[in-house]
């Protein structure tokens, strides 16, 4: 656990509390966008996808607010030790979340294009990827909300499962596409959706790793298990 509310300066505690809340709001907004994305994909709903895409602006605004808050905190409080690591960690987490917002937008753009194609045979695999990445992302948000770095290990191990799931889908679809030329266009969009969801899992892991860093000061080796495509 990382305590940030026990400084002598109550104003400092309040500033950190506000920063934490802004990050939580960013997480909740993304979670909401993500849930809508699954339904939009499942129901071929382009209006819902457009709404999600327009929400990405809010994510960018929240990221800017977080960076501004951190900038002022560093200038005013000149943080040390765990406080310094928390601010560096939050800077990184805000960046990862912003990237997740971009990935969700990108998935929805592809969804809008896919609406005119028949993708019934691939749908289930993609929905499965969606829900695996969702679970991982929620777990990383949980890890942040509770500042529980032990959960980070769980997130890391689950990311490996998504990688496997992605690789399986990638090979399966590629093989199909090589046989059915009418699958090339929708298949390519689906490959990108799958790739984006896999990347989303990576960023969820990065968020969890940032929590570990805040707690321990150790930066996780980038050589976390990866499987090649």
């Amino acid at each position, binding site marked *: 656990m990382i305590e940030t509310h026990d*400084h002598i300066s109550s104003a400092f505690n309040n500033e950190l509390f506000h920063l934490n809340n802004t990050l939580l709001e960013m997480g909740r907004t993304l979670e909401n966008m993500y849930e809508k994305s699954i339904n939009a994909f499942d129901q071929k709903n382009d209006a819902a996808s457009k709404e999600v895409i327009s929400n990405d602006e809010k994510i960018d605004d929240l990221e800017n607010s977080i960076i501004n808050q951190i900038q002022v905190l560093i200038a005013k409080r000149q943080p040390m*030790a765990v406080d310094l690591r928390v601010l560096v960690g939050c800077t990184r987490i805000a960046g990862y979340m912003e990237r997740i917002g971009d990935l969700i937008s990108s998935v929805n753009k592809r969804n809008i294009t896919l609406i005119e194609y028949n993708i019934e045979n691939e749908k289930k695999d993609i929905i499965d990827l969606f829900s695996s990445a969702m679970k991982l992302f929620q777990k990383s948000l949980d890890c942040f909300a509770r500042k529980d770095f032990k959960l980070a290990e769980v997130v890391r191990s689950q990311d490996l499962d998504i990688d496997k799931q992605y690789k399986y889908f990638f090979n399966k679809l590629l093989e199909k596409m090589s046989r059915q030329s009418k699958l090339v266009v929708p298949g390519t969009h689906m490959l990108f959706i799958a790739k984006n969801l896999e990347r989303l899992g990576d960023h969820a892991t990065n968020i969890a790793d940032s929590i570990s860093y805040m707690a321990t000061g150790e930066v996780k080796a980038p050589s976390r298990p990866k499987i090649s495509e």
Partner: protein
Amino acid sequence: MIKEQTKLDIDNVDVFYGKKQAIFNVDLEIKKNQVTAFIGPSGCGKSTLLRCFNRMNDLIDICKVSGSILLDSVNILDKKLDLVRLRTKVGMVFQKPNPFPKSIYDNVAYGPKIHGLCEDISELDEVVEKSLKSAGLWNEVKDRLNEPGTGISGGQQQRLCIARAIATNPDVILMDEPCSALDPIATARVEELMQELKKNYTIIVVTHNMQQAARVSEKTAFFHLGHLIEFGNTEEIFTSPNEIKTQDYITGRFG
């Protein structure tokens, strides 16, 4: 990498003011040509320990120091030690700039004169110029060496005190809160000077300014209630200290 040489080897030092123990069994090695920062809340013993290094505590009747402090393998706690000589080897700069009520020139020339370190006036002139140059003050005062040392700005006065400390060619310079009475510009000049001076001297600085300790020192020692809690590389102390007490102090969680 150059091997770090020990300048001051502090072993099992206890300090008492009457019955009250102010320092408990401190072991510490101060490395040559480095800046070592002592940090800790008021009353933690950091200044008391600093004052052991030039035996300033001898001036306080009820103060008793035990253990050993080796300066280049000579125990400076030895009763028979020549204190005057020790204090030429271990200079000190205080919180408030305290130039003598004499001219700028005489402030710097005072030490070499009373210790008979110079043969004649021209040698003394040289020492004064060299010391003022080392303290980064020469250009600002070279045309007014006969004006009173108390007539220059606070930051200049502090650098004058540093020039005075290095005029006797010491090995170690002790600084007790050297910048707490200075504005940020004068502080930056003194910090810059410390980086310059450590090439030739070993510096120990007591400071309440955590950022200053983080900026100027290679090693940091954190004291609490007379105990040395943590000693290590400054970078580690300020990014991820080992002891929870250190972290609580440097992040403003107790004091």
